[in-house]
């Protein structure tokens, strides 16, 4: 547990007075960060299960909602409005959801060099709205006071963190590989390599 707490200490102020206590255990992140990593983890699992991350970027309606969620964060994140723990959790949840909804499909498309396995259909959009409603309902009952809940929550938070690390790592590795290929193997002045780069 101390390793997890240490990892999150690099990412969060870990203020005890602003952290949820679940069954006598203090979560290793503040309430807003708990929402963020939980939202990222739950969303990543959702995208994995219905495999919509590999189809395409979300349709326009979902993008608009996600952008609105991203814009909501400065209002709560900079304490312009701070109505309490449930709202802090909520702002983190929707922010995390929006980040993963953009990050995971984007990483998938970039790593497949623009390739996609399909496109979003109406049922997949409907399932997003159901999922989004579930996410918004979490602050109404969070946290349940059980040790199992504590460990499950922690697991989802770790999944959320690893999702972001994984997506960024995949794209970074791909980018390095591309640059290496174009610069070293094909030569810096190679017109073909340059045209490939401009496509990228």
């Amino acid at each position: 547990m101390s390793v997890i707490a240490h990892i999150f200490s690099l990412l969060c102020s870990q203020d005890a007075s602003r952290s949820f206590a679940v069954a006598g255990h203090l979560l290793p992140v503040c309430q807003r960060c708990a929402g963020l990593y939980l939202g990222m983890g739950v969303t990543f699992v959702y995208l994995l299960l219905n495999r919509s991350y590999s189809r395409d970027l979300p349709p326009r309606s979902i993008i608009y909602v996600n952008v609105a969620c991203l814009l909501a964060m400065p209002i709560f994140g900079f304490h312009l409005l701070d109505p309490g723990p449930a709202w802090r959790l909520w702002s983190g949840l929707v922010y995390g959801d929006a980040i993963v909804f953009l990050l995971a499909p984007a990483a998938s498309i970039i790593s497949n060099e623009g390739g996609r396995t399909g496109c979003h259909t109406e049922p997949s959009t409907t399932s997003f709205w159901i999922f989004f409603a579930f996410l918004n309902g979490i602050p109404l009952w969070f946290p349940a006071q059980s040790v199992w809940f504590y460990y499950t929550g922690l697991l989802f938070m770790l999944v959320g963190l690893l999702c972001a690390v994984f997506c960024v790592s995949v794209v970074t590795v791909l980018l390095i590989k591309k640059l290496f290929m174009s610069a070293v193997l094909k030569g810096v002045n190679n017109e073909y390599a340059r045209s490939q780069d401009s496509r990228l």
Partner: protein
Amino acid sequence: MNTQEVKTVGCRKAWIAFVAASSCLLIYVMACVMSPPGWSPDSSKIAILVTLPGKPEDTKEFAIFVYDIATGAHTLLDEVKADGVLSAPSWSPDGKWIAYYKVEPTPSEQVRPSSEPNAALSIVERPVKTPEDKPDRSAPSAPGEQLFSEENQMLPSFMFELAEERVKDKNDVETFDVKLVIATPDGKEKETLQVMKWVGDDKFREVMVYLRPTWSPDCKRLFYVRSIESECYTASIDIATGTTYAHLLSAPPNPVVSPDGKWVASYLEDDDTLIASRIDGSVCKYFKLDLEIGDDGPPMLDFTFWSPDSRKILVVDKDSVLHSIDTASGQTELYKDPDANSIAYPVMSSTDKKMYYLGGFRTDEEGPPPQTISLKRMDLKTKRTRTIFTFRMPELSDEGGGVFSISPNGKVVLARAVMDDAFEKERSVLIFWDGKTQKIVKTDRWLLKPLYGDSKLIFEEKLIGKWQGEDSRITIAKGTQEKTYKLTLVEDNKEHRAGANLVQLKGMMFLGVFLDESLLENRDASGSHLLPDVFMRVAQIEPKLLLQTIEYSKLAEVLEKAAESIRPEDIGTENISEFERAK
């Protein structure tokens, strides 16, 4: 559009989405890790009870101020004079409120002790927990005012009833009213949550300056103590509903609430038994501690705190050994810093959950604190210690004392002390150390009310020059600001510099002398340039300069009494010095 073009456009959109999402995540993480903890206000501001130098029980003036460490601005929250008392203030964890106890100076009819005629002490039945029975927060005859008005959640429950019976049987109990007040840090909003009776004599009023209410982590409850003669009990009030609960019978020290908000702990009157009770009244545990505790009152006022996981209570004893008591098993673990002879003024950091404390300091030693003190950090899991910074204490006055506290982020050390000024007069000061700088703030001036405004300031050219007295020499020059002077006083081969302004008050001319010249040079909005350390009445300038020293409080008194103009006999003839213009 062919397949390749579709892929290229898709890739471009994906890159935009990727960069946007990564940037948002990065910005958020950086903001959360690097932003100053605005919600931890006592790391940037402090709320402090200010009194004049001397023992708290002797002082006749109390005021609570909020002081901004960076800007130096101070805001008055509340004040009482005469026999009134204010307690130490307590910030709510969200930084929006400051709570404190207040005893008004003049008792009202209903607060009169029962030994006096028309005594109005009554012990009422505890209210049943119904919305109709919620105590009225402002009405003077509400149940909340009376003794034992809290809903009993004490274990065993008969203890509360026994205490009630004991007070009921006595006819000569003395009581006084204590207000539980919350105020916003800017002082604009203030609310009296409860007016409660304390049973006890004047000694209990003296104890009050050392007490402070305690907030629950979610800011929904405020924990307080109530005195019932030689004992106290810890209770809490629900801020939203006003419902009050009695939790445990305890000694006066401030209750400590666990970070999960489920437990409250305090000590029994013998100071050696720690009690931890669940706030809902379902469990109460007693831990007999084998601590070396002296006879000089409650020893562990701010030396007890909970571990971040709310499982252990940490207590520092008089031998500076840290005892960690597991509330589940009752097992005690001891911690001691091998490199320092003490663990003093410990605080659990709100940011890294490590314990910060002062090393090289023993709380049971009489006399001034040692010259060199270290701010140290201990990781309670690994027991590793680290010195954050070391600082030297400035020279304090004989009664200088020095009460320390560490900011919740573990970065600033604050001491309240008394230092001698240039005229060897004792002044209350706050001393801040952040590892790089030492900042000394004099607080006595905060208690002063200006006796004049800018319009009363005058400038007399004739004062300028060198003046020779019997055993001192004074040089008066024009100051850098308009209508100010620079004074250089040489006495016993010692040179003192000061600033001054000249003011005409009810027909007399006074030099307001400032030992800190910067107060006149950098005028702030709080009007410090109108609050001199001492006044010198200019009785005459030519042919000889006659200056009469008069204390601030004395002049305030004279001005209040004088109807139109001050007569020389109002001030007397003491402390007059004669100076001739030096050639």
